[in-house]
């Protein structure tokens, strides 16, 4: 049992932190970047590709690096620390992960090679305006077969980075039921879908994608229900979103303690007021408990046990949801008015935590799922 990074992992963290701090260490740069399209920095994206970061999750035979979940988690944490708006979580971890898990060998090599090289940006179109949320179902989008061709119909919204993406992984209900995975976009034959991009409240980007008999290419065998694959990739991405949120919360606590020791009122710095320092102490408690469970869930991915991952992802997401609201809200309150302004990072960090909280299931969603199985065990065993 070991909760520390090895030398290579530390080197990766230092390299990624160095690059990202140089880029976004000054929050004003992040603000400028998100003020213009496509909402992230294409040059930084290429440099991340050169560093090997964009190919980390993918097999070497598919043009990737073949790294493990700990390495991917390191990258997500560092992205979170500086609120980097780059489409790593949904574009690389989830979209790339789905291609990796469901694509044919040719598709994997072609698509993932381009993603790893920074030449192609992916998005995942799964959420729909109606129907259940945060499940593997896609009831509002149907896939139909017409000769050799597959056509998709339905509306997906919000699709993170859906307007900029070169290619979109779309979920759709298969003719015989179940959820299929399809590629739509630049390399699909025929018409592209109707895409309407917009900004999200944390400076990110999303889009509404309307598919109307839009040609699509199935990932791998088109008749296979991909619900299980989708569920596992969503679980993995939940853990990576928690890693990203952890990075955000670490930065928020650091900003808060720094502010409390520098800002003066009533002639003294704010850390003279116990009403404030105790609340900062409680933020630390939330942060450390979350850190432990995020590390644990990240390591659980590596076991390859899908059921264990599903459980760990839900538990990790529940704790992260609770903590990100606590820390996000308190960071603003302890700063006071300055954190309400767009020119200061803390308020945007809370906005970003709120996005992460609602991407793949909030705390109550996971609580509900875990409550189903509460009588399946006497105690939870952290060490198995």
């Amino acid at each position, binding site marked *: *049992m*070991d*909760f*520390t*990074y*090895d030398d290579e*992992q530390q080197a990766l963290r230092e390299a990624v932190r160095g690059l990202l701090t140089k880029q976004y260490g000054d929050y004003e740069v992040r603000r400028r970047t998100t003020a213009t399209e496509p909402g992230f920095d294409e040059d930084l994206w290429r440099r991340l590709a050169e560093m090997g970061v964009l190919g980390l999750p993918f097999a070497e035979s598919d043009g990737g690096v073949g790294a493990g979940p*700990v390495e991917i988690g390191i990258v997500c944490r560092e992205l979170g620390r500086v609120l980097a708006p780059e489409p790593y979580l949904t574009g690389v971890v989830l979209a790339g992960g789905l291609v990796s898990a469901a694509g044919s060998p040719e598709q994997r090599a072609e698509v993932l090679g381009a993603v790893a090289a920074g030449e192609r940006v992916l998005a995942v179109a799964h959420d729909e305006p109606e129907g259940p949320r945060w499940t593997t179902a896609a009831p509002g989008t149907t896939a139909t077969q017409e000769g050799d061709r597959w056509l998709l119909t339905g509306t997906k919204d919000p699709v993170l980075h859906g307007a900029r993406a070169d290619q979109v992984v779309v979920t759709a209900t298969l003719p015989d039921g179940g959820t299929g995975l399809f590629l739509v976009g630049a390399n699909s034959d025929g018409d592209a879908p109707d895409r309407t991009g917009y900004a999200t409240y944390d400076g990110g980007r999303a889009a509404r994608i309307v598919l109307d008999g839009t040609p699509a290419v199935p990932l791998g065998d088109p008749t296979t229900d991909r619900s299980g694959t989708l569920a596992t990739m969503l679980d993995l991405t939940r853990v990576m979103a928690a890693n990203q949120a952890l990075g955000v919360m670490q930065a928020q*606590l650091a900003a808060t*303690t720094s502010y*409390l*020791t520098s800002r003066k009122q009533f002639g003294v710095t704010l*850390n003279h007021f*116990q009403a404030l*320092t*105790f609340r*900062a*102490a*409680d933020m*630390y*408690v939330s942060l*450390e*408990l*979350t*850190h*432990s*469970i995020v*590390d*644990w869930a*990240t*390591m*659980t991915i*590596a*076991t390859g046990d899908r059921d264990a991952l599903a459980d760990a992802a839900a*538990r990790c997401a*529940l*704790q992260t949801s609770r903590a990100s609201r606590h820390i996000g809200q308190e960071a603003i309150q302890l700063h006071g008015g300055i954190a309400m302004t767009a020119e200061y990072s803390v308020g945007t960090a809370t906005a970003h935590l709120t996005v992460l909280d609602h991407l793949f299931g909030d705390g109550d969603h996971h*609580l*509900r799922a*875990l*409550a189903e199985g*509460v*009588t399946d065990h*006497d*105690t*939870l065993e*952290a*060490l*198995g």
Partner: protein
Amino acid sequence: MQLELSPEDAAFREEMRTFFTTEFPQEIRDTVLEGRHLTRDQIVESQRVLNKAGLAVPHWPQEWGGRGWTDLQRHLWHEEMQRAGVPVPLAFNASMIGPVLAQFGTQEQKERFLPATANLDIWWSQGFSEPDAGSDLASLRTTAVRDGDDWVVNGQKTWTTLGQHGDWIFTLVRTDPEVKKQAGISMLLIDMTLPGVEVRPIELIDGGHEVNEVWFTDVRVPGDLLVGEVNGGWTIAKFLLGNERVGVAPVGITKRALATLKDNAGDRLDDPLVRARVVELENQLLALELTALRVVAHSAGGEPHPASSVLKLTGTELQQAVSELAVDLAGPASIASGADEDSPLPGWARRSAPTYLNLRKASIYGGSNEIQRQIIARSILGL
């Protein structure tokens, strides 16, 4: 990063589990698992069984019965005991005065006290808190004045847990009233059968007799019972209160309490609100246990991992929350605390409210949770 225990540590855990569940007296385990009170004899027997097996004081120096285990192994030992319903060794002996004497005692003190302390032949009490010295311990006023070779002690200690069973008491006393308050304190070992020592019970809100006042009136204590340097007591007190990394958070005992609660809850677990409360508690306990593992796996040298400070704070809050849920699940039966054993109401339900009230102590003792927040704010966050 690796989740699994090493084969050695996994084998170690199995060895502990086997001993605690097959070789330890079942009757004592049942008493603990059913939430009933242990008698003094049961506590003594329990520690002697552990001591005979080399499991009472594994963290002491090896020449005095220690085992040279890693922090992780000690954590596994501690968790497996709690999981099996084995009472942990008496804290006053095993965790407090034992390590202090091993570190600061004279050779004579070590030989005289350590074997008897490990075997609970001497039951130690703790004489730190006073009516006007709680969280601000250094303002204590019990005095010890030199008279020939002896010290003459006068004053009052309070909150002395299980002092009614005590043979000896380790005390902090003021030996120099003229200097800065921390610099005038010494540690003195006092035989509780000496003339002038009086133990008076304090009745608590759960109706039980767990703590006491201990009064000292002209008690003559031989000079060789002072530990360490004269006026060096504050250093010893800080060592005693601050050197623990293992067992800081009541993880195992609270996990077991929650599992028992689920067992007892029956149909009430069909209520989605109850299920939600259980899930929240289980999840927070999981995060706490993982944090405890991070701390024991990665405390380097003498310094505990910074996250250790969250353990006491969160652990006691969760322990209290589980006891609160028990009262809610018991419902009206929780009121029947005074009913006899012929009561048709289940024992766990009748005991739930006194337990809930009793556990309010957990966030007060051992450095109140406000003191813990102060430590986090100052030492870790630099505020």
